[in-house]
């Protein structure tokens, strides 16, 4: 599990790579929370996430909630297939409110707004 980060015009982009699962939850959490402190605008690129489990989902939800509470913006983007599958299963697309690009072959945006 590696997280690359990029600063770009005040926007902090994070690129987690690998599995966001229980095995990495403990190391992931401080990194993600730290990122929240660093910037007001954060983008989380999920395109390299191979596996997402409940603990990963919880972390994402926690981040989103903390961001909203602090009046910051957290944007999830580039949902990988694994992430999409879990969001679809849990009906979380609307919860995060980010546009999800469905895999090739399906047109339009997934995840209805609330």
């Amino acid at each position, binding site marked *: 599990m590696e997280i690359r980060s990029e600063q770009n015009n005040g926007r902090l982009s994070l690129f987690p790579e690998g599995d966001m699962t229980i095995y990495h*939850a403990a190391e992931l959490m401080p990194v993600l929370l730290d990122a929240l402190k660093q910037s007001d605008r954060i983008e989380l690129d999920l395109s390299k996430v191979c596996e997402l489990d409940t*603990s990963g989902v919880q972390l994402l939800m*926690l981040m989103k*909630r903390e961001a909203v509470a602090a009046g910051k913006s957290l944007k999830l983007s580039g949902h990988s297939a694994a992430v999409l599958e879990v969001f679809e*299963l849990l009906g979380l697309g609307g*919860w995060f409110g980010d546009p999800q690009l469905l895999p090739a072959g399906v047109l339009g945006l997934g995840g209805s707004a609330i």
Partner: protein
Amino acid sequence: MSLDLSDALQTFFEEARGLLEDMESSLLSLEAEPDDAEVINAVFRAAHTIKGSAGLFGLNDIVAFTHKAENVLDRVRNGDVALNEGLIGLLLACRDHIAGLLDFAVDERTMDAGARSQGMALAAQLDLCLDDKKAGADADADSASARLPTTTEAQLQSAGGGPLTEDTWHISVRFGLDVLRGGMDPLSFLRYLGRLGEIVHLTTLADALPTAAAMEPEACYLGFEIRLQGDTSKAQIENVFEFVRDDCDLHILPPGSKLADFLGLIGALPEDNTRLGELLVACGALTAHELEETLAVQECEVGRETLVQPLGEILIQRQMVQPELVDAALSKQKDARSRQAQEAKFIRVHADKLDSLINLVGELVISGSGVGLMAKRNKDVALLESVSGMARLVEKIRDGAMHLRMVEIGETFNRFRRVVRDVSKEIGKDIELIIEGENTELDKTVVEKIGDPLTHLMRNAMDHGIESAELRASRGKPVKGTLKLNAFHAAGGIVIEVSDDGGGLNRERILAKAREKGLIADNGADMPDGEVWKLIFEAGFSTAEQVSNLSGRGVGMDVVRSNIEALRGTVDIESHAGVGSTFRIRLPLTLAIINGFLMSVGDGHFVVPLDMVQECMELDPARNPQRDYLNLRGEVLPLLRLKDHYGIKERLRRKEQQGLNGRAARRQNVVVVNSAGRKAGLVVDELKGQFQAVIKPLGSIFTKVRGIAGSTILGSGEVALVLEVPALLSEAAQERVAPVAQV
């Protein structure tokens, strides 16, 4: 996670092996009675527990495979499909595969290609079963749904509130904090739930998610409200969550539940009522109007019902559960409780501790009899009385201590049901296994070591002993062959018999083979049968004309013999052509405390096991001058004069001459012993009566001494020899034959 799981892992391996054994014996008994729900349940539980525990340790291969087997078992358990012979065979193969996977896990290896392909083949077969069953399940569900509406309507009238007509289940689940740490991912349950029907709506609840500071990344905080549409049952849905049943808060409302039910649900869930209400509306479970109505009737509704009725009835009345489900739940609870009780019944104790306890008890018995002797000598009546009281207690402690180490041989025997089943299938013979004396207890170490030799004997008996069906028919025997395993205690030892009703050993063929191998010099025509049979235990001896998969390579029987001899046991064979053979293994109890009968010859003391003693009588020297037999109520009773046999006579005479021990010489007694149907009289000087003998093995120098099972220490500190009567008698018989042959 940095937890050290290695200890727990060992426990898991042990338990899993135990469970697999249970599973095997259950499956085998299902072959005879395929409808026994208890046993089917036992098999299911075994698979289920293995899967659950394997999941904890991240043994994913085992989890994945066992899960498939468990699915099939679940269908069987629900009666969706009848258990037939083919399915039992498949399940047995699955059991073996799980055992194999377990071995890989023990060695910390990953599955090899062979195991992988075998697993895939089995999984494919299991899937096939599931498909078959699905058709049956659908049919069941149809009839169930046809039944349901009438009851629904009847109940609705009385309970009031508007019915919810949608055919959709509502499931509320809140996972416990430890679910993730337990190695289980709620997502997988949800995915699995999706296979029962269509998840129409799913709302993820993160209300329990704490603040960033308080959040533990490895705890689980999520809850879900799920609308599931499909032909399924409450039990099936519950089964999905079975693994986390104790660790999650699960509520299931069947289709057509009334508003009151949702009311109950709202009350039962941790979140704020209004928030929940909105959620249910969002899920489509309720309409906004219904929610209002529900919240309005909340108070009186709940208050009234809980006051007068037990919970179960309310649940039924509210149609939350079907009556049979309440019964099932109750019996499940009872089950769980009895299982806990059973777990509490066993303690793991290191064998060394038991050994030292038994040693101490042995010493206690000896010193106890020392005290008794002193009391007798001093003629102290009060002391004698308390000594006899103590002796009784010591006896009880002795029995208890001995039992700690003893295990019933039945477990070992039952393993052979599988062996017999597999072998008989393989070689195409119909063979029935009869087990007797499975309650016979013997030392745990002996039980562990006797398994291999027994397996060899059984396989030999099945492969070579029992004839093919055609041959049996032509010989006028029942086509079904019989193999018998029997165990019983005899003379301070245990006898294990393996008998078959096959063709018996072929004397000519054995002799021919023995000549060919150079084991005997002459043609062996005058060799007694017993000697001939013993030849088959020679290394490299095999008379099978065809080497089969099972036996016939000539490595089995000498291994059998050396294994048994390593346990200081003997094996002998009784065989009759065309009738069958019996292999009789006698094992001594290396360390034991027996009820003995003490007698003395000259100044030597001897003990025979009390249960071999039939009677005692005085030997009238006038009527029986130095004869080696006597007339016991019309029967000829051979006599064995221990004095002569052990050469005690000389010493005695010297003492007699010195006038020291004259009385004993004048009056002799006969102790009639019975061993394996042979009767004999032991001529001794003095009878001393019953005696608790702690048998101590003789040193290795004396291992070649026949007829003596061990020694014991008397209360006076003197040593007495424990006679091994069967060996003693056969040795005496040989001695007597030998001089005649020489003449």
